């Protein structure tokens, strides 16, 4: 066990993978000499060489296209997109190619790779350094989508993603890259994909969240505990495949659901969670489902603290959901 920040845990996982699997190759903008703009790849080019930690030209299209070509050949590439906001030039490669290669070839060409990108707001990044674009990828069959919320999960989920036989989009909550520290197991620590974590048990209201929203939801839950409301906080960790049993079990227990994410509400990931509840847990629901999300606007700069769900807004939503019905 070592006390690490989230970004350090990512770095450790990458180092572990580079050390233990010669097929692992990192590529991206500024990841080598510079160690990544968030230092996630710090020291790795120095230790593993420029053939394994590759500084690429400024082309997300090329980064993902080349990574796919490597994966087809049998390597385990880990491309980095500098900010999730800049993933769109690679969207065609991700959605048309990466997600569909295994399928369209009748299983001949699996394409396992882990595409890493920091996502989310709260760093005064404005429109183009703050977005949460997970829903686009969650809607794309063939991709897996993983978002850690703690240093230990960051390492464990990343190592599981690298070992996975399918393409994984691994989105890192940059806002808590350094603000959260925690004990991280050394060595080959794995957290299985597809399993949610109940980070706090409770009986009155269930809160479903992921990434940088998890600490905020936990804080809101603690606040409400003082008022006598028992809140269960479920960190989904893997958005695709979703741990649906965990979702349903929690709502069957509490009868009330609050869903929290940073992305805009309309057609966001939370819509799917709410839809599943409307389909499969309707008779358990004692109160309307409630979503606490980014508003349906682009991400603003000066007013990001109003735009983003904060502890107060989350707590208020839990409170009224607890009372409703």
């Amino acid at each position, binding site marked *: 066990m070592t006390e690490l920040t989230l970004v350090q845990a990512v770095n450790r996982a990458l180092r572990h993978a580079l050390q233990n699997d010669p097929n692992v190759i990192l590529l991206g903008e500024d990841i080598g000499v510079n160690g990544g703009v968030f230092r996630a790849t710090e020291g790795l080019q120095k230790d593993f060489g420029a053939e394994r930690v590759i500084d690429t030209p400024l082309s997300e*299209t090329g980064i993902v296209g*080349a990574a796919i070509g490597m994966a*087809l050949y049998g390597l385990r590439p880990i491309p980095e997109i500098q900010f999730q906001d800049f993933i769109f030039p690679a969207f*065609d490669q991700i959605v048309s190619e990466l997600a569909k290669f295994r*399928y*369209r*070839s009748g299983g*001949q060409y699996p394409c396992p790779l882990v595409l890493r990108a920091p996502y989310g707001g709260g760093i005064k990044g404005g429109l183009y350094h703050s977005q949460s674009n997970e829903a686009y990828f969650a809607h794309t069959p063939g991709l897996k989508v993983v978002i850690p919320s703690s240093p230990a999960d960051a390492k464990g989920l990343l190592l599981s993603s690298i070992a996975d036989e*399918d393409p994984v989009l691994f989105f890192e909550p940059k806002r808590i890259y350094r603000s959260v520290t925690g004990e991280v197991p050394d060595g080959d620590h794995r957290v299985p994909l597809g399993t949610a974590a109940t980070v706090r048990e409770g009986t009155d209201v269930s809160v479903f969240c992921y990434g940088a929203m998890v600490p905020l939801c936990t804080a809101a839950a603690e606040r409400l505990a003082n008022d006598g409301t028992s809140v269960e906080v479920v960190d989904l960790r893997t958005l695709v495949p979703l741990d649906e049993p965990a979702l349903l079990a929690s709502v069957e227990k509490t009868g009330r659901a609050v869903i929290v994410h940073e992305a805009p509400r309309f057609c966001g990931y939370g819509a799917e969670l709410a839809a599943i509840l409307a389909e499969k847990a309707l008779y358990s629901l004692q109160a309307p489902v409630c979503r606490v999300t980014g508003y349906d606007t682009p991400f603003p700069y000066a007013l990001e603290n109003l735009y983003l769900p904060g502890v107060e807004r989350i707590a208020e939503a839990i409170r009224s959901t607890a009372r409703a019905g």
Partner: protein
Amino acid sequence: MPGLVLADRAPAETTSAPIPEPAPAELVRAYRTMVFARAMDERCLTLQRQGRIGFYVPLQGQEAAQVGSASALRPEDWIFPAYRELAVALVRGIPIQLLIDQFFGSGGDELKGRQMPNHYGYRRFNFVTASSPVGTQISQAVGTALAARYRREPILTIAYFGDGTTSSNDFHAGLNLAGVFQTPTIFFCQNNQWAISLPRERQTHSTTLAVKAEAYGLPGVVVDGTDFRAVYAAVAAARQRALGGGGPTLIEAQVYRLGPHSTSDDPKRYRTDEELNAWKARDPLARFKLELMDAKLLNEDQDHALWEAARQEIARAVAQTEATPPVPPLSFFDDVYAVVPPALQEERRSLEQLLAAGTVRP
């Protein structure tokens, strides 16, 4: 090298070792493949008109470019095709039964009926499964070349694409990456003068397509794509250079699409009979046949026999495909992921029930 010119002002690189001319037997084999491709094409256009297959992309006019380029490769080289590379597939030795099965989307289709006709690929032949969005294979081919070099495996990758596809994002990304990393890659552009209805000169204002190589610091060559030997020589030279560490090459093979873009297209809407006829006079098959006859490697009887053999083999394959049961109805849930995840299993189960109850029919 006949018909081969270096692109307008492209950095000229000449290979040291001379490229050997293909042996007579190779020439005849190449011609036979071209005949085979043409016969397949004719047959498939008919199958489509008869409604027996849903769609088809013909290659007529591009046989010499395809057979010439593919013949200069070795089986371990990875091919990244677009959707028009039937003759490349035949050179690679992909059994026509597999191809016909794919065109029909029948139960014999190793791709399991997932894709439209012409969008095939077979891992054991190092022939990567094609997709429809143009150009995406180009940057992938560069990645595979990087991977092979990383493993110290002496192979190259070749990406096939058309004149229109030089405008795609991946053409730019792929060639630039290849230049920076000097990957063993051949970019083989079949300039068939048209991208559906857009003529080459309105696709881009550059003098040639090969000259675009210079934007990435690569050699670019223009070759007469109706001339088997010229194409063979250009690709063999590029291969030699790439495997010698000399980096990638862009080759523009100038050809003409003699048929429609696809069976959904009517070229009469956008091009003239004069243009078509001018290019028909340069039909690569006719040209190659004359050359072989001049060299006494072929006579009319032998030619006739080649066509007959091709047509019969194709007819047999079609018959076998049509006797094959269809793809199993629930198979479309497979291969989304390595293992079908629980939610998708549930979806499959629900369809299975609807099928069992007779509510929906395959």
